[in-house]
């Protein structure tokens, strides 16, 4: 998983310095007390110093918070940066080869075939694409995205370009399943709905339950690639009157 090291840096630079200074002061004061409560203060101070020095805060991590801005991302090799917003990770195992899945996904115009909230994706050249979501007038969103990580047959990472309506990023990883039983497709998606009413509308487009949405998107991907179609009952007869 390429985000593993990322989780260690979730505290911003100024906050790191503050942690070191405040932590040292608290630790020093605690040590001078020569009591049990002093020892507790000293360890708290020590922890703050460590937090400042390492740039990693376990509490922030547990809360899914980072005060470290995305601009500090090194090399932009990570497509789903650690941080705020809505973050979903889902997997599915598909009876196909990684190459096949990679090629299918790499053509982003295929994405609306299984991603329910997308109206269309156009490839606009140079690894860039233009995305449009479904929805009634006023709730549609559009943005341009660029591929930022591309390892043939293994992974594709993308993110919206600067100044997009909806800041979002995603990556997909293709790993051969154990025993040659297909390929595990793991998707990580993150988006920050913009503030205000428009943001709420966009959030609705992405679904009330993003986890379920991504799970169902991946199910459709599996259905298309394994069976050649999406099973449906839309349009079958019922005794219910229209």
């Amino acid at each position, binding site marked *: 998983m390429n985000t593993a090291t990322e989780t260690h840096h979730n505290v911003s630079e100024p906050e790191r310095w503050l942690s070191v200074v405040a932590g040292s002061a608290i630790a020093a004061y605690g040590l001078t007390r020569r009591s049990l409560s002093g020892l507790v203060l000293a360890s708290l101070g020590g922890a703050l110093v460590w937090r400042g020095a390492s740039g990693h805060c376990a509490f922030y991590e547990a809360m899914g918070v980072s005060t470290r801005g995305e601009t500090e991302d090194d090399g932009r090799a990570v497509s789903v940066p650690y941080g705020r917003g809505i973050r979903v990770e889902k997997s599915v*195992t598909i*009876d196909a080869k990684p190459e096949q899945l990679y090629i299918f996904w790499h053509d982003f115009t295929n994405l609306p075939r299984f991603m329910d909230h997308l109206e269309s994706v156009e490839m606009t050249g140079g690894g860039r694409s233009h995305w449009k979501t479904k929805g009634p007038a006023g709730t549609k969103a559009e943005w341009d995205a660029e591929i930022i990580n591309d390892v043939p047959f293994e992974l594709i990472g993308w993110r919206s370009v600067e100044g997009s309506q909806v800041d979002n990023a995603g990556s997909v990883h293709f790993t051969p399943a154990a025993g040659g*039983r*297909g390929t595990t497709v793991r998707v990580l998606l993150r988006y920050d709905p913009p503030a205000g009413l428009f943001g709420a509308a966009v959030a609705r487009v992405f679904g009330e339950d993003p986890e*379920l949405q991504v*799970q*169902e998107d991946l*199910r459709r991907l*599996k*259905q298309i690639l*394994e*069976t*050649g*179609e*999406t*099973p*449906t*009952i*839309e*349009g*079958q*007869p*019922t*005794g*219910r*009157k229209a």
Partner: protein
Amino acid sequence: MKAVCWWGKGQVRVVDVPDPKILNPRDAIVRVTLTAICGSDLHLYDGYVPTMMKGDILGHEFMGEVVEVGSEVKNLRAGDRVIVPFPIACGRCFFCKEKMWAACDNTNPNAWMVEALMGFSGAGMYGYSHMYGGYAGGQAQYVRVPFADVNPAKIPNGIPDEKALFLTDILPTGYMAAENCGIQPGDTVAVWGCGPVGLFSILSAWMLGAARVIAIDRVPERLRLAQRDGRTEIVNYEEAGDVFAALKELTGGRGPDRCIDAVGMEGHGHTADAVLDRVKQAMKLTFDRAHSLRQAIHCCRKGGTVSIPGVYAGFIDKVPFGTAFGKGLTLKMGQTHVHNYTRMLLEKIESGVLDPSYIITHRVSLDEAPEMYETFRNKEDECIKVVMKPAG
């Protein structure tokens, strides 16, 4: 066209609905020539299965003539006579490739509903609630058959509908139940429940080499069929009282080697929210309804097998698991992988070794469905199996 629609608890109506259309490239449309009411349809009728909607077309046991095929269906053509297995398989996922058709990954468009409660979903089914896909069923003049390139089996013209129809569900279900027993030469097989599945389990147990078959029920006409056509010894549990003692006596103190629970219980799985209430409802039921399973576990000989074709739902209370462990029992169960048995059973029917039509007690038209559901549910009029001719 005419279709039998679910209209609420205890209510079934024959309604004029639009004809089905091809919706996907692997679809076919079949003109139904014969269809049956299954015991498991009664779970729907009695309102135990959530996610049924007023107007849903019922029926998962049906056969007929292909009238139209989608662009990807190359192995069927208009005019072919087919039976259609009740679980809809895609034929291409891991489970289908392993011949576990009823566990298909891809055919239930509402799999998330089942997953919410059970973790995983099996195949979609015809006319069996929206949690199992919401596919319109075959108690109708026409039916849409998805994945028609892998599911239907062609039936030679020489075999009448009544002999072929039960290949869709109850005949292979009875067979798989007996197969799951792993019958060894000399084995005594005890079968709880002499409805259609129990009766076919009995026939199959003989085919698979059982030395003795004992049938347990309380309905006289069912026991009569088991005895007459199934050549079983019988235990009427209302008369015998203590079934354990009766079976122990009949088997010289050892207990039956293989036990088949062809009773099951009401209810059939559940979904997301409305669901937990349903589960509680089902749990209330289980106090009596899991009785046959508890008894089978209790009666089975040491090292024996308990095979469960009867449908169970969410949670069962007071299963004597210590008994099962203490005796080292094998438990086998699950929805039937119908497709695995069609050819073999069809050959037996064709050669005259097997004629499953003997269980049919009622032959009616589709219009009579509402009263037939009631008759079947109440086990009135010695009703064991109802078949309906949509054309007639």
